[in-house]
């Protein structure tokens, strides 16, 4: 049985990491989440470098859940770099953030975010949002095939 890391959770708030993992526990996706705590680590993971140099561009996550307010490299910058490299350009990226700043939503969409989700403050709503997002992106959405990561 393969244990692919299909969700990359980019989140610096340990409480939100716990809540997200808790929401996914018990579902099929629970064991397939990799967590990084800042934008630089997210880029290392996605670009298969540094501590992730053994990863392959041929096995991208099916979903990146991206907080926007991140240490080292900001979430929108992470998104920009993902979208400008053909090897990562088509990876589904969903902003998952407490930022309600209209500017962030606008910039996110302009940079090509697939979807934008506000973190609910209520625990039950938070859990429900995470479950629905994981279900949508891992079971309903058809992820980009390998050919999509080889440029055109």
């Amino acid at each position, binding site marked *: 049985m393969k244990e692919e890391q299909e969700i990359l959770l980019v989140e610096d708030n340990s409480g939100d990491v716990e809540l997200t993992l808790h929401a996914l526990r018990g579902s099929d996706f629970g064991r397939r989440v990799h967590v990084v705590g800042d934008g630089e680590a997210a880029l290392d993971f996605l670009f298969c470098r540094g501590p992730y140099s053994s990863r392959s561009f041929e096995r991208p996550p099916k979903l990146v859940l991206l907080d926007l307010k991140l240490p080292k490299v900001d979430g929108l910058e992470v998104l920009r770099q993902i979208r400008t490299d053909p090897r990562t*350009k*088509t990876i*589904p990226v969903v902003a998952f953030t407490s930022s309600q700043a*209209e*500017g962030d*939503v*606008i910039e996110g*969409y*302009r940079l*090509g975010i*697939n*979807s*934008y*989700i*506000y973190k609910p403050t209520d625990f039950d709503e938070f859990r429900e*949002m995470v479950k*629905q*997002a994981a*279900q*949508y992106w891992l079971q*309903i*959405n*058809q992820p*980009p*095939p390998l*050919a*999509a990561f080889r440029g*055109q």
Partner: protein
Amino acid sequence: VKSDSRTKAIPVVILTSSKEEKDLVNGYHLGANSYIQKPVDFDQFREIVKQLGLYWLVVNEPPPNGAFSGPGPSGGKR
């Protein structure tokens, strides 16, 4: 849609019966937000469309009006 700044931010979900890889690849490269293959089974189809509606109208935060401003290809304003 994705090459005009006035429409670029509109979420676009491809809902198609095409299983051709090139359509998937092109769809994503052109900036489709999501790609869904229509199930042939009626109940599955209904379920998928329900989930699609729930996700994009309830879970997703749509782009605010400010996301649609800016010059189009002809420099016009919305």
